[in-house]
């Protein structure tokens, strides 16, 4: 089992090295003539006003929040799904209750109008 992860570790290293080598090759070959206009922030030709900070909608955060809860709960279902074939009907129902509690959260969010993009 450990060898599996060793292989993935090698994949990680090689997968990082190949894009890096492409960047390095490009860095060696490409011209470097910076000037202030070229390096300015791209905003469709307008002067950049202020810094990189805009007031974001909290809605993005809400969706990330709902996602976090769903992500964690769905991940927990994977071991249940793997051993489902050897489980009794009672255990299957346990898992379904788990999913129903999850859906209750979705219904709550829906009823509160959080899933609307205001």
């Amino acid at each position, binding site marked *: 089992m450990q060898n599996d992860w060793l292989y993935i570790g090698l994949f990680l290293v090689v997968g990082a090295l190949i894009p890096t080598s492409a960047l390095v090759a490009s860095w060696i070959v490409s011209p470097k003539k910076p000037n202030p206009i070229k390096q300015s922030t791209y905003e469709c030709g307008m002067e950049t006003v202020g810094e990189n900070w805009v007031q974001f909608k909290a809605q993005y*955060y809400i969706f990330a*929040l709902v996602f976090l809860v769903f992500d*964690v709960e769905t*991940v927990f279902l994977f071991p249940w799904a793997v051993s489902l074939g050897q489980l009794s009907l009672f255990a299957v129902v346990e898992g379904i209750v788990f999913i129903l509690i999850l859906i209750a959260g979705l219904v709550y969010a829906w009823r509160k109008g959080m899933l609307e993009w205001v």
Partner: protein
Amino acid sequence: MIPLSWYLILSAALFSIGLFGVLSRRNAVAILLGIELMLNAVNINLVSFWRYGDVSMMAGQVFAIIVFAVAASEVAVGLALVISVYRRRNTVIADEIDLMKW
């Protein structure tokens, strides 16, 4: 192979670093970052006890999973509180959020 002590020392060190972060940072979000470190230290302990004990007892892994759930809930509620406070008081510095002191 690796003795159990290595994992325990590592997790103790990680826990202490997280504790330092929780106690010293002024920004409320940074305090939550410190709490995440501490929870991870706990998880390392749980998983290594599972591995070094009887592997047919799944208690270690199950509790690590429960800790994941706790961490997720803690982050969800904690950050929601921080954002709510930020909207009302316009600050996330923990010292300045002192309405409850009196």
